């Protein structure tokens, strides 16, 4: 290895290390499991708080025995506007079944299905008060705004909550952050029961950088 080659190699290593370490927080990828009773995300989606728009990629597998239709909402503080786009074949040649997505709802989800949802997020005009779960404005029509749970996982993991609004709050309160702040999240709810299926918390950081969350 001659000197020029060695120098180029060292500079490359330094440059690509910087590229690997630095992270643009206008987008994030979160992976989770859609599960009856409430699945979990592998980690929260980390976004830069100073931006006006973001893209969140949410991929999730459906854990048996869940099957049904799942509504997707962006909820919590601050007020955010979201549009949801399902990743789907341009031309579906029909050999394998794919769950369909329209009106912010996945139809006919079955065990072991995988979904990839692209969420374009914009900040709303105002920031609403903290500690109050608020469902974000949706550009596309959704069936109701406030997700209502008839059965949700309580702090102890038992299905005990009866009051729908209380159950939703309890479930959300448990999953969001260590300080109990009900920050924004992309949430999946079963259409038939309004039961939680998956919640992907969104955390806003002070600035870009730090590359250790996901690939």
């Amino acid at each position, binding site marked *: 290895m001659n000197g020029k080659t060695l120098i180029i190699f060292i500079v490359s290593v330094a440059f690509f290390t910087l590229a690997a370490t630095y992270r643009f927080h206008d987008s994030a990828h979160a992976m989770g499991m859609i599960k009856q009773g409430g699945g979990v995300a592998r980690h929260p989606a980390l976004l830069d708080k100073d931006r006006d728009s973001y893209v969140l990629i949410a991929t999730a597998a459906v854990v048996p025995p869940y099957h049904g239709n799942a509504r997707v909402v962006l909820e919590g503080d601050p007020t955010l506007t979201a549009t949801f786009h399902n990743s789907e074949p341009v031309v579906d*040649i029909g050999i394998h079944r794919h769950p369909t997505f329209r009106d912010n709802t996945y139809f006919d989800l079955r065990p072991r299905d995988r979904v990839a949802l692209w969420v374009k997020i914009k900040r709303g005009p105002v920031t609403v008060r903290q500690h109050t779960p608020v469902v974000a404005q949706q550009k596309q029509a959704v069936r109701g705004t406030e997700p209502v749970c008839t059965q949700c996982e309580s702090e102890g993991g038992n299905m005990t909550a009866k009051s729908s609004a209380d159950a939703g709050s309890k479930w959300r309160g448990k999953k969001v952050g260590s300080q109990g702040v009900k920050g924004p999240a992309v949430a999946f709810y079963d259409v038939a029961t309004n039961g939680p299926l998956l919640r992907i918390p969104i955390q806003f950081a002070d600035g870009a950088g730090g590359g250790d969350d996901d690939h």
Partner: protein
Amino acid sequence: MTIESAQAGFMSRHRTMIMVLSLALFLPPLAFIFQISTGGIDFCGTWCPRMFYAIRNGAGIKEVVGGIMRAYMGVTLVGAAVVSTFFLGRYWCSHLCPIGGAGELGSRLVPDKLKIDYSSIPAAPIRYGYMGVYVAAPLLGLGSLCCNYCNFAAVPRLFGAAFVQADLAYFFRAYGVINLALFILLAVVAKGGRAYCNFLCPVGALDALSSLLGMKFGNRMNVVEHRCNGCGKCIDVCPTWAISMDATAKIDQLSCMPCRQCEKACPEGAICYGKTT
């Protein structure tokens, strides 16, 4: 050095057609290969050819095996590419890879005067600098180059963006813009259309190592030294700037992919594909 000369075969004569066919099979709107096999729609997920060797800090055997199992089609694809390269040279890269093919075919649509010539930059140290960081950064917990700078994610979405909003959304973020810029600068407007493959593709980097290691065993592009008159026409047409000139042409098997442009360009018939003994 003796060389078993080979006639320009099917793969050489029909390379452009094979690349176009590969685009049609792998990329939107049909993405036929994925749809008929696993029901996927792109290289992400089961077909991911990159993530299984970007192992996270603290990952145990279970996680590593799990990553391989999740991307089993991508692992199979890379394995087949590396093994075939060992014996036949980098045909995956030169003919079959839809990502490299898209860049090269795109570059053919760009006038030569607008193209950037990267041939003065040695490719191998950049490629293996990238590859080293690609593997080491997640292992050390520093971060990752894997999905953020992924050619196998960006190019299919570029083809799908005209049809599917989710694919379009990929380009509404910094990484989408960066990947698009890299693809344009290092492929579409690059002389030969293969600078991205040469610098930044981890699959290409693995394939190149296999090409070098299998040089004694398999078929490669070779120079018949006594025929070479040193005219340098082969250098002009090589998309990966793998040829250098001393008294005669020398081919760097770490960068060469058997596109066989040099074979066609050589007026003396001094370059051919065959076994080196």
